[in-house]
């Protein structure tokens, strides 16, 4: 069975020689919500524009439901694109904006009306169908843009930072709405964002990009708990990273030489040999705090495989039931721990000397 979307060895080299996208491979199933995530300049928007037909790839093929679309212009592809700026027409009312794509496709007026009515109802826009563009709130404009993209019944909806123009509070609400909508319509969404929180909350799978290349494709949870590269670990989540060298291996557990002495962690790539330079990635929620004296306790050292570092609480920030500790380790790095206020009570105020521990199996060793 053909994938809804398949990119094979897709590349884009601009005329000035800049490599925007390099050897991009991805298969997307029908109904998947895919996020392309990365810093600005990573190639995510160029990739989206190539899928939509707004840029031509300089290599590779793009297929939608088994049909190669490389040579088709945007209006002949079964895709719709929602731009960050929405690109709505200010002189048209809500209905006219939504019907525009159908007018272009020469859909008869009666059918246009019916299809626009249907999508407006799904997106809760019926009440403002005749509303002028100027009177719309940011959230309403966003929904009108979505309706305009969906009314042409695309196989794939492409979204370029669609929440970027909304203020932060609205963004969070629309994010949940968008996910519900996508699941109920069952249409494939490909979504570009530089905000990890959006990608983590909405996407079924996330494609993390850096310098035109894919770093990792994974479900949000896997990306968070099993980053494959130092880049992913730095970009996603609240990880602390210690650099080191592998000195010994025992199954998938490696012993590392670090500035804090020997530490032990789980190898993400099995084939990293002794002597490799690595990043030791420690997620914020796997670390535990103990009173300083526990560092001398052989039972504690034993339990955590020697992953016991002395530190001092720099700051404690409580946000509802969540508490974030910033802990200075040996005056060289600061690690962040996120916990639930019930877990330690309020035993670790700023200035308290502590030790920080984690299980070897909870820390990820990835190539630097």
């Amino acid at each position, binding site marked *: 069975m053909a994938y809804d979307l398949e990119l094979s060895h897709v590349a884009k080299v601009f005329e000035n020689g800049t490599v925007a996208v390099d050897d991009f491979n991805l298969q997307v199933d029908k109904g998947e919500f895919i996020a392309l995530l990365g810093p600005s300049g990573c190639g995510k928007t160029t990739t989206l524009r190539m899928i939509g037909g707004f840029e031509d790839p300089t290599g590779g093929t793009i297929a939608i439901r088994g049909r190669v679309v490389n040579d088709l212009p945007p209006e002949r592809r079964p895709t719709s694109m929602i731009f960050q700026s929405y690109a709505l027409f200010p002189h048209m009312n809500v209905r006219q904006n939504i019907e525009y794509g159908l007018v272009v496709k020469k859909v008869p007026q009666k059918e246009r009306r019916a299809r626009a009515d249907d999508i407006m109802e799904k997106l809760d826009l019926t009440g403002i169908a005749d509303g002028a563009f100027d009177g719309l709130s940011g959230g309403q404009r966003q929904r009108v843009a979505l309706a305009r993209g969906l009314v042409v019944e695309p196989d794939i909806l492409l979204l370029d930072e669609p929440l970027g123009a909304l203020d932060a509070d609205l963004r969070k609400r629309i994010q949940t709405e968008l996910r519900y909508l996508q699941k109920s319509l069952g249409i494939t969404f490909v979504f570009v964002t530089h905000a990890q929180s959006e990608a983590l*909350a909405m996407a079924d799978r996330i494609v993390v990009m850096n310098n035109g290349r894919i770093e990792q494709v994974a479900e949000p949870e896997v990306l968070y708990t099993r980053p494959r590269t130092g880049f992913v670990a730095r970009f996603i989540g609240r990880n602390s990273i210690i650099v080191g060298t592998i000195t010994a291996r025992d199954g998938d557990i490696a012993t590392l030489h670090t500035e804090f002495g020997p530490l032990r962690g789980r190898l993400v790539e099995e084939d990293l040999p002794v002597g490799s330079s690595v990043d030791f990635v420690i*997620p914020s*929620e796997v670390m535990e705090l103990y009173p300083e004296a526990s560092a001398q306790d052989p039972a504690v050292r034993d339990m955590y495989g020697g992953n016991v570092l002395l530190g001092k609480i720099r700051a404690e920030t409580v946000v509802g039931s969540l508490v974030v500790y910033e802990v200075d380790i040996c005056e060289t790095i600061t690690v962040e721990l996120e916990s639930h206020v019930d877990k330690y009570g309020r035993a670790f105020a700023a200035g308290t000397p502590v030790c920080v521990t984690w299980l070897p199996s909870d820390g990820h060793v990835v190539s630097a």
Partner: protein
Amino acid sequence: MATVAAGAAQVEPGGAPGQPLLQVRNVTQCYGDKVVLRNVDLDVCAGEYVTVLGPSGSGKSVLLRLIAGFEDPTEGEIDIGGRNMVGVPAHLRNVGLVFQNFALFPHLKVGDNIAYGLRNRAYNRLSAGAADRKVDEMLELVGLEGLKDRRVNQISGGQRQRVALARTLATDPQIVLLDEPLGALDANLRASMKVELRKLQTRLGATFVHVTGNEEEALAMADRIIVLERGQIAQFDAPEKVFARPKTAHVAFALSRFNLVGGRVEGGAFVGDGFSFPMPPGESAAAGPATYCVGYDRVDVEEIGTPLPEGYSSIVCKHVSHEYSGATVTYLFDLPDGQHFEAQYHLHHRKAKRLEGGTDYLLWWPANKAFVYLEVME
């Protein structure tokens, strides 16, 4: 001691720490027939960081404008440092303002933006040399050394926010008022500016009043939170106290961390369409329409048939989907009557669950961590 120009209402630097620096006394503000603030009473102590949380239309920005002196209240009094400020124009109140849109001069350099107030204010105007030294001091304070000669349109959003802050702090205001100061920044930047802003305030020992629609900012940054609800103070307390016991259903709603289930109190229980919970200990059992409230993080998800521990309330409902946000996972459920219910697992505290969409699960929570409000949310 700086010379104070005639007519300036500048007052001595705020009283001893712990003494009210700002007092809002019984303030009501009307526009025509519309009452936007009603009988607002509050004290802010010198050195405090106070956040004002409320949805749009709650009157939070109006409160800030009244303190700043852009408007005078219809009724009531605003005292700063023990002096009544009603009738004193904004530029003579010695309060500083930081806006969401930064309100910088795009054609001026960073340094000139910061110096603007120092060179042009009504009193205590600084010489060019003194203003220049102050600008350097401020740039260092906000971590923008080296950007003095850059134009404002050549720097990033986060840097602009710092310039706006530096410009305000340069005038040594008694109170710094911030109107959604992080609202225009993207999520990543917002998180780091949140920490920086609070550190800066602590270091300076300054008094900050920060208006926001974002509950996370309000909870994380404040010594005390004011929750505004339709022009009135619904609660004014330390964040942990507000979170532990929101005074009204609207306060709980504003914090975005609580399940709020509509129903009624009947025969000593909270009853909804297709479910019923025993009344939490200590809650009024007076019959009538009501809202049941329990924190997302208090709810456990179990397989149907798991024995219910002593002192817990429970419900069976259908799992819809989950949202992953790194260190926490939120599981979304539908109650029998279609209302939403959420369970949030913090992964440092509890192990994540693998749940099937469309399947029923048993949810439980400690009965004494739930509240019942005799009010109904619209």
